[in-house]
């Protein structure tokens, strides 16, 4: 049954169960309509009733209104004016100016959001207001990016040779990985998707540690429980990769909330791709980070492809950066292949996130120069020429090298020396990791809970029994202890 509501937009809920009308304020618009307390008898409408067509309250139908402390009491004057005398209305959510012109906000802007860049294609800085990195930091960034590139190439080959089952490269995204990590502190907690091993590399994860995880041997911190590239290390503040897309985004917001409660000089940083930005988790996480004023940096690696889905099929907005405003999140679009631009942007974002308690969205434009993973052959859905262009002419590693070379911080000799050293180190690490034992059977059952419960103890006993009885059916290199 609809009760005419007058000019207010408040909605009454008709409920069958007995709910008393909550005590209404003195100035309430409704005080003329209801008696206080349960309207169990017919409450005749007060003479202040404005609507002559109002229907009398049915005794059987009782009303409740929700009282929100945050909403001001109804004003009898239902519109205000701004300084120019234009009419404003105080809707929940704030004052809004009216317009007599019906104008739809266009679905796309006149011009796409500009992309922040420092180094041009030849590695020359085009302006001077970027964070001046020292020679040490610049060379370390470059060396780390190069190491990542070499590591990726060799691990990919190892997968092709059947030595590991699976691998995901970050070719083309080295600058995003490393430069962002370089601008952060070790206390900032990372919630990765899966294409960010460069962050771990920057923080000191060794090639051996990477190899151990890929081989799932007993030195793996994950104890052989996850697929390759699902790295995780609490001492590096890098949360273990989970295969599910974008689930880490709201987790990063929750962790930021915990850092904020602690008043720490740290933020959380989470990475995801253009595909991940379509998920429900992305939406709610950004929305909520803004509401909660959480110190979190959202870095979207917009590399143009979600497996075989190009961005034109992923969304119709101007990329991901414009969505920030939709949630009230400050955002910026950056050239993801420009290490200095990434460094500068993340550096600034971190400061804002921590001192102002706000989330920041960084859309790093780049290109996924490799395949989605070793289970993918991207030449099936995109032209090889496009891949080659980005891999060669627009390689972020080369671009940074040109810059450090132009500063005389790097040379051809240093280059070949680093390349051959890294290559050797990676190959060695793989050989060592391959030979290390796998985790023992007990590790199938530990860490499911803090202590193994009786049913798991029983299941372990059963498994050991079975292995003892049929040893030929089980791999010989798995230690039974």
């Amino acid at each position, binding site marked *: 049954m609809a009760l005419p509501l007058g000019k207010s937009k408040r909605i009454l809920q008709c409920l069958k169960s007995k709910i008393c009308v909550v005590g209404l304020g003195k100035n309430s618009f409704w005080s003329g309509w209801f008696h206080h307390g349960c309207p169990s008898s017919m409450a005749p409408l007060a003479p202040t009733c404005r609507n002559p067509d109002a229907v009398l309250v049915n005794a059987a139908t009782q009303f409740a209104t929700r009282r929100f402390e945050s909403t001001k009491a109804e004003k009898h004057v239902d519109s205000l004016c701004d300084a120019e005398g234009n009419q404003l209305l105080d809707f929940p959510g704030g004052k809004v100016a009216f317009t007599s012109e019906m104008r739809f906000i266009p679905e796309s802007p006149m011009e796409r959001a500009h992309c922040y860049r420092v180094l041009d294609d030849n590695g020359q800085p085009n302006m001077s207001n970027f964070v001046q990195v020292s020679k040490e930091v610049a060379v370390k960034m470059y060396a780390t990016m190069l190491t990542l590139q070499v590591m990726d190439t060799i691990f990919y080959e190892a997968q092709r040779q059947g030595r590991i089952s699976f691998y995901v490269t970050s070719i083309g995204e080295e600058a995003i990985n490393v430069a962002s990590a370089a601008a952060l502190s070790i206390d900032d907690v990372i919630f990765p998707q899966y294409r960010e091993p460069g962050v771990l590399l920057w923080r000191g994860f060794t090639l051996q540690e990477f190899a151990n995880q890929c081989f799932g041997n007993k030195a793996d911190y994950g104890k052989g429980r996850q697929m390759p590239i699902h790295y995780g290390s609490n001492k590096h503040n890098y949360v273990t990769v989970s295969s599910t897309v974008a689930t*880490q985004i709201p*987790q990063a917001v*929750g*962790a930021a909330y915990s850092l904020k409660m602690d008043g720490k000089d740290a933020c959380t940083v989470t990475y995801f791709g253009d595909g991940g930005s379509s998920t*429900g*988790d992305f939406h709610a996480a950004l929305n*909520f980070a803004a509401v909660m004023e959480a110190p979190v940096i959202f870095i979207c690696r917009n590399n143009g492809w979600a497996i075989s889905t190009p961005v034109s099929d992923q969304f119709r907005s101007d990329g991901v950066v414009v969505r920030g405003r939709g949630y009230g999140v400050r955002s910026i679009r950056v050239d993801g292949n420009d290490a200095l631009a990434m460094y500068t942007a993340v550096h600034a974002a971190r400061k804002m996130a921590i001192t102002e308690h706000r989330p920041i969205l960084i859309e790093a434009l780049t290109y996924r120069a490799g395949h989605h993973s070793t289970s993918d052959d991207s030449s099936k859905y995109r032209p090889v020429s496009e891949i080659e262009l980005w891999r060669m002419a627009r390689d972020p590693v080369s671009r940074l090298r040109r810059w450090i070379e132009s500063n005389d911080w790097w040379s051809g000799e240093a280059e070949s020396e680093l390349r051959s050293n890294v290559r050797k180190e990676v190959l060695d690490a793989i050989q060592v990791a391959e030979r290390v034992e796998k985790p023992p059977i007990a590790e199938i059952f530990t860490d499911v809970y803090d202590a193994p419960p009786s049913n798991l103890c029983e299941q372990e006993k059963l498994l050991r029994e079975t292995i003892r009885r049929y040893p030929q059916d089980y791999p010989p290199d798995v230690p039974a202890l």
Partner: protein
Amino acid sequence: MAAIFQGIGAAAALPSAKKFHSQSRRFVSARKGSLFVVRSDGRPSLVLPRGAAAKADASATSTASKPGHELLLFEALREGLEEEMDRDPLVCVMGEDVGHYGGSYKVTKGLAAKYGDLRVLDTPIAENSFTGMGIGAAMTGLRPIIEGMNMGFLLLAFNQISNNCGMLHYTSGGQFKIPVVIRGPGGVGRQLGAEHSQRLESYFQSIPGIQMVACSTPYNAKGLMKAAIRSENPVILFEHVLLYNLKERIPDDEYVLSLEEAEMVRPGEHVTILTYSRMRYHVMQAAKTLVNKGYDPEVIDIRSLKPFDLYTIGNSVKKTHRVLIVEECMRTGGIGASLTAAITENFIDYLDAPIVCLSSQDVPTPYAGTLEEWTVVQPAQIVTAVEQLCQ
């Protein structure tokens, strides 16, 4: 093997500073004269001796000399929550309308005013995401309690609960722990419609890495809430929409129940009736009739849905040799189905008759009051089942 010792004025160890993945054990604070038990797995828990835990339905005996205080179940939950929030500044609550509104069922009433908006957090309507938030917060050191306004809404959070909450401690090799409590009201209410009458315990029971408990009285509600918060594992605490206004006198002294123990509601000789949550009350009502007819049923509220307390259940089966399970879950894939399998596997030699399981039918819960009543197991059916079982 359990060691029992008096905790005389034992000081509580302060919770460790919020380090990343703290390893320190938290010990239970005990007031003078309380008992705490170190379980065989080395974990301390403050429990009242088994005898004291057993009591007739709806009446409480306090083991302390003080008379205790009366409250409703939702207040008991709140009391447990508040005590834990006082004790440990890392404990926080997040959910829809838990803040100034006090929660849809008033479990968090007054807490936002006392602890501030940051510790009692209102979330937007995005269950998967705020569950994810809770998981992220837990991994960085907080101990969040995530409230689902209705358990059914947590179906939206299934991805985070199954793939992350239950899994990340394992896949990270023990590096990251997730000490969250996920709680909310579920079960068939009064004409709330099919979508608001879900029994999520059926769906969640398979997820490795989580524990599940169901409370049914103010006494066990408070005890289980405290235990769940102190547990290092993710725990799902199932409350029931129709039980929030149950009144009981509970002890004034602090107590924490064990998450893995069942509750002996009524000892008996003829038949073991296993139940939990709201069905406990239907069973006890049937028990009155059964006693008048000369039967002596043993009623156990299993409380721990994952893992089952097969010790208590087994002892009962060995005594009575007949088992009746009464649950609110649907027949297919419910807690009763798993419990039947577990008992059969472990205690087949002690059974004189096949296990009987009374469940709801495999239908969505209808809205009409009469229809809804008949999808839920009623005392009359329980009486009939016992009579048939004991023939």
